[in-house]
Structures are given as C-alpha cells and as structure tokens.
C-alpha cells in the first residue's frame, strides 16, 4: 500500500510541496479525505504522467472504484475492463481536470468510472428497460414495510444489489448511490423518466423482499 509523504520546504516567500510515494506506508483510512494540498499535489504529478503517481492514485482509490464497478457488473473481468478504459480516459483527459477543492479529484474519477460502467453495459447490449420475472415482484406494495438491514452483513447487501436485474440495478445504483434524480437517470440512460421511477420502485421492492427473506430463512443462500 502507498502513502503520500508530504515534505514541506519553506522558502522565503514560497511554500514548496513535493510528494514522495512510499509503498511501505499504508494509505489513510479514508482516502477520499486527503488533505487539499496533498490532493492538489497529486494532480500535479498525475499531469506529469509520472508512473508512480498514477499507481499511487490507483491504490488510493482502488477500493472505491472496484466497489462502484461491482455494483454495475459483478464479474472480475468486466470490472477489469471498466477500470482499464476508465483510467485510460483519466490519463488522456487529466489536463482538462480543474481542481476545485477537497474531493474534486475523487468526484471526477468517480464520474468517469460510472460513465465507463454504463458504456460497458451498453456494449453488452443490456437492455436497461428489461422485464423481470413477475415472481420477483411482491404482490402488495406496502411503503411502510421497511426491511431492517441492521443485522444483514454489508457483503450480503452488496451481493443482493448485484443480483438485481441489470436494468433495475443500474437505476437503483444511480438513484441511491449517485444521488441522481429520475430525470437525470432518464437522460443518462436514454429512457423515460417514468420508466426510471418504475424500475427503481421495482428494484426497491425486490431488494426489500430479499432482505426479508434473508432474515426469515436464516441467511438463505447467502451463507452467513
């Protein structure tokens, strides 16, 4: 794991920062909260196409990126493809990135990876507006019936999301994790806004049913 060690050298009128990438030291627990100057300095090194800087950049955000990709595609090879293409895009367009404060780099990186994931799904001819087995959808809709997720491990929840039909899963992820509105989702996916809302609703119901079923059947096929 890497860590950016910040050497601060004071000159008369200037503050000169330089990063040294050290493989021995761990990455901070929350890499998204890298100090501003450090993230800015990282951007400068990325602009130089420095190999070590890019490797550090990858390691810094690898978990987040893999987690994001894993919500849209579950196969490791597909995740690999998305990450590759995403990083090539970042590498080619890093000059266009404008640092606007803490978190802007990770937000920029996140947008690119999500775009790549959606593009990848399109290349697989995955129909976002797909139908689903009626058995999967609960008969009655009770908005007040919220499943309790406290006792469900996060890996199981993650797996349940991955198991959603691709269209539902995509809309669900964009709505829940990317905080996009149905209007934005509809525009991004090229579907009707009502369709986005409908698919999200169904995804939510399926997920709630899975969670309820998990608790009632004592872990079910998730094995935990």
């Amino acid at each position, binding site marked *: 794991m890497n860590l950016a060690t910040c050497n601060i050298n004071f000159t008369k009128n200037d503050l000169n920062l330089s990063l040294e990438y050290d493989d021995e030291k761990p990455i901070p627990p929350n890499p998204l909260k890298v100090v501003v100057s450090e993230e800015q300095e990282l951007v400068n090194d990325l602009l130089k196409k420095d190999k070590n800087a*890019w*490797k550090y950049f990858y390691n810094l955000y690898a978990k987040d990126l893999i*987690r994001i990709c894993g919500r849209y595609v579950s196969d490791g090879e597909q995740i690999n493809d998305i990450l590759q293409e995403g990083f090539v895009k970042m*590498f*080619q367009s890093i000059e266009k990135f404008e640092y606007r404060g803490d978190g802007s780099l990770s937000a920029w990186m996140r947008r690119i990876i999500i775009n790549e994931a959606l593009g990848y799904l399109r290349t697989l001819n995955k129909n976002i507006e797909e139908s689903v087995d009626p058995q999967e959808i609960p008969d009655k809709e009770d908005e007040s019936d919220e499943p309790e*997720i406290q006792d469900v491990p996060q890996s199981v*929840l993650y797996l349940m999301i991955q198991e959603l039909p691709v269209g539902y899963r995509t809309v669900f992820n964009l709505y*829940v994790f990317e905080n996009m509105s149905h209007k934005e989702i509809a525009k991004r996916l090229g579907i009707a806004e009502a369709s986005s809302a409908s698919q999200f609703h169904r995804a939510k119901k399926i997920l709630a049913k899975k969670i309820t079923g998990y608790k009632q059947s004592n872990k079910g096929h998730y094995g935990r």
Partner: protein
Amino acid sequence: MDDKWLNKLREKVNDHDPQYKDDFWESIEERLFPEEDKKPVPVKKFPVARLISFAASIAACLLVMFGSYFLLKDNSSPSGKNQIAGAKKPVDIPSSLQNDGTELATSDQNNTQVGQTMAELSDLERAKKQGIAISVNLKKQFGSNREDADQKISAAIPEVLKREPLTAANNNMFKDDTNSANGTQQLLKPSEESNEIIRKEKLLEDLKISKKLMAKSKKPNILKVLGGTLLSAGVIPGASSVASGYASFDNVAAAADSSDSDHLTDVLVGNQNQQVNSTIRKNKALSFGISVNTDISKKWSLSSGLFYTKLSSEIEAGSDEYNYSIKQVSHYIGVPVQLNYRFVNKPKVRLYVGAGGQVDVAVASKRTNNYEVAGANFSEGDPSYKPQRLRFSLAAAPGIEYRFNKNLGLYAEPGVRYFFRQNNSNEADTERNPASFSLRTGMRYTINAKD
C-alpha cells in the same frame, strides 16, 4: 430519499470492500505505460488522429492490393497471351504478303525501326554476337567449300544483323566482332537497304535457307545456335523476346540439347508460315501452414511458422498445329518471419498489415516439355531441371484473422511477394519478374494475445 432503510443501506454498503483476486493495476499499467516504446498512451487522442491512423491503414492495404493487381497485370497479359511475333501486339498482315509467308517479316517490322527502343538495341547486339557464333558454327559444318559455305552462312544470318548500325560505338563493336570471324566480314557490313519491302523479302529468303539448313543438319548444336539466335533476334515468330513472362524462352533453346530436339525443330520450322501465339501462366504462390504469433503490444505482433508453398508455371508457344509447352512445378517448405501492425482488434476479428521475409527449401520439383507437331503430341520430363534449393523472399500483405478463441484463429494474407534471384538457378518462375501475387493462409496460434 424518503426511505430511511435505503439511506442506511447506502451508508452500510459504501464501506464494503469487495475482494477480487485480480490485480487490476497490472492491466491498467500496461495500457497507460506500454513497454514496447516506453511511452505513455497519447495525452490527447483526437478523433482526427484516429481517422488519420485508420486512413493510413486503409491506404496501406489499398497500396498492397493495387500493387498486387499491377504486378499481376504485368506478369500475365490480360488475355493470358502474348503475340510472340515481334513481341508486340498482333499485326495485321498485308494481303500482298500473306501468300508467301511474309507475315514473319511483317511481324518483324516492329523490330526493324532502328534505334526505337533500348530493348531492341539489346536484341540487336545480342543477335550480332550470336551471329558470330552462327557463322563460326556454320563454317565448321559447311567449311569444306568456302564459297558455298559463305553463301549458305550469308543466307542463314538473320536480316536483323544486316541493319544499319545504330551508333558509332555499335558499329565499332560490330567491326571488331567481324574481324575475329574470318570470312564473314562481308556479311556483317552495314546494309544500305532502307526499303522495308526489300528488307522483308530478304528476310524471307534468309528464313527459307535457315529452314533448309535446320532440316538438313538437325544437329543439336546448330539447332541451338540457330534457335537461340532467331529467338533473340525476334525473327522466328514465337521465339522473340517476351516483354513479360515467368518461364524463359531460353528454356526452349536449351531443350534442343535433349533428345526431343527434332520435335522442337519441327515446331520451329512448321511455324514459319504461321501466326503464332504464346501463353504464359504463372500460378500464384500459394502457401498453407501453421503460424505462431506473439503479440508485442495491442497493435504490434511478430509471427512465424512452417509453410508449404507450391509454385508452378507454364508456357505455351506456337500455332495450333505446331506448338510446344513447358510445365514446371516446385514444392517448398518455408519459414517466414513477419511483423504485423493491427488496426482492428476485435474479439472475433483482427485486421492488420504485415511485412517480412521467408526462406523456403525446395523439397520436390518437376518440369515437362510437350510438343505438338501436326497434331501429334510428344511429351517428356526434363531431368536437368533443378529448382533453386533455397529461396529467399520478402512479402507484404494485408491480413484478416478470424479468431475461434483468444489464442487460435484462421487467417488469410493476400499480398505481394518478391523472390530474390539466384544466378546459378534455372528456375523459370522468377527469372524475369521476381515479384508476384501470393496468398498465405492457415491456422494461427497466438501465444500471448493482448486484446
């Protein structure tokens, strides 16, 4: 988001650390910092640059394809035939000359325009040199009576030797040659005749006497000399130089040394009053084999393998009743080394252009001489034929590969192949035009496919 449980779910899942065995950085690093040129991927890859790259690839393919086409066009005339008389296109024979066989002279008319082309000059010079040999040989044959021999020799020397000298240097060379051949100087003096009709008539007489001489002696050495001279001089139709071809007409003269020289004599004599055609076929170099490919990068790859190649050619010359043909087939086993640039790299299809070299070893060969004399066919193998044992060639071709999976595919490369000459070879295929169309096809195994 109204649903509280969804907020909880987001917070909980956001910290999840999915575990994958793959180290994704390795493949990312390979894309960002390819090792083959130590350069990172282009910073700005504009669509224009991609278009230029694509257009350049297409242009390279078209260049190879058109190159192949024009080489093919040169190697075999569109009709598959060359009008050998005068080595030019068919000539309409004047009616005044048709009854006495003067179409030969008429056909030769194209060659009698002194100084027209360098090729003609070359033929003339060669004819002069060979003319000395003719006179010497004929003198040996008919030397007992000098006057009689001189008369016969004079008649036997083709008219082309009696033309006006083209240049002073040419004239000097001519005189030097004649000084070395006692008794022939008179024959080799530059003629003052400029009237084309008279020249044609004299040529006809020459040929008639030539025919008598050949019919009388039928000795291989005379036949060879006469045949070679007349071939070179373009006097005998069907024996003049051919602008393009793969099998050499020298093979015909060489065949006179074999036991079937009588048949060749019959063909040559029988065609004196005939309109003759030649057909030259050089079958394209076809290679089949197994290719092993290693991807250097996503764009570049190096391939080699083991290939069987068949080369065959055929020449036919003469008239309907009197003609001869030579057929030869050679079989090679070869190893190519080729560098390929891939411009389309899909999971199922790859398109690329490649260039490289190949060395082939001859494993079997055969040449057959066939004669048709007044409808009767004679055929015999030519044991003297030995193809070039080692052949070196360069090839360039666009290629397409259909991939069954990541490593195995079927491919075809239609392109151009240039065979290097070897002086001591009597291989006919490449004597005159060493470049030709080729098709290489087979199975390909890719060791480390990089998609």
